[in-house]
């Protein structure tokens, strides 16, 4: 079945430093989504990428979808303490009826003030 690998598992950064998490799928995806889960909270949808090579920005967050639609990355510029949490990528398969998302295990970001 489809597998989604995410690295690193943990990342500790000094406030103001940049942060990047990477996501790789074993199969070609129709789209990839990113979610953020604050400590003690629930995953919250951030963004969806659909097109090959797509790049989207949300303020200090930059999301990329690979050309082969099998990998993605999330980059945060100049991290802030409000960025603390676990970031999940979730891939949706490209086969017919592939409704379910396969989540990576997440990257837990800690920001040291």
């Amino acid at each position, binding site marked *: 079945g489809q597998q989604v690998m995410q690295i690193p598992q943990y990342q500790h950064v000094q406030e103001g430093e940049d942060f990047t998490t990477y996501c790789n799928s074993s199969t070609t995806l*129709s*789209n990839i*989504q990113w*979610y953020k889960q604050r400590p003690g*909270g*629930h*995953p*919250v*949808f951030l963004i*969806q990428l*659909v097109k090959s090579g797509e790049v989207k920005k949300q303020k200090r967050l930059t999301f990329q979808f690979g050309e082969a639609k099998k990998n993605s990355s999330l980059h945060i510029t100049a991290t802030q303490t409000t960025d603390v949490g676990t970031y*999940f990528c*979730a891939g*949706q398969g490209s086969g017919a009826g592939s*409704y*379910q*998302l*396969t*989540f*990576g*295990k*997440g990257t837990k970001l800690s920001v040291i003030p």
Partner: protein
Amino acid sequence: DARVTQTPRHKVTEMGQEVTMRCQPILGHNTVFWYRQTMMQGLELLAYFRNRAPLDDSGMPKDRFSAEMPDATLATLKIQPSEPRDSAVYFCASGLVLAGWETQYFGPGTRLLVL
């Protein structure tokens, strides 16, 4: 502000007891998902429904877990009998299909502790 609601938010029970978790999806959403989250395994998909019909429950231990959608406003996840290894956070999410792709909206979760 439409949200997925889940009850109870916290549940402590003893091994062998039945546990029922409830979810109210966002009105108009036609897909419902149940996930289990633990430190070791991360987010695991247990079951999902589309238009109230079960599409996939392969991630769910069949002998003790069951998931149903008695109507469009209610999804349930039952564990009988519960075991300590079932201790986890159980999330319900509802989905909206747009152009064939789906975004999921998670509820606050039920934090289950089985002693």
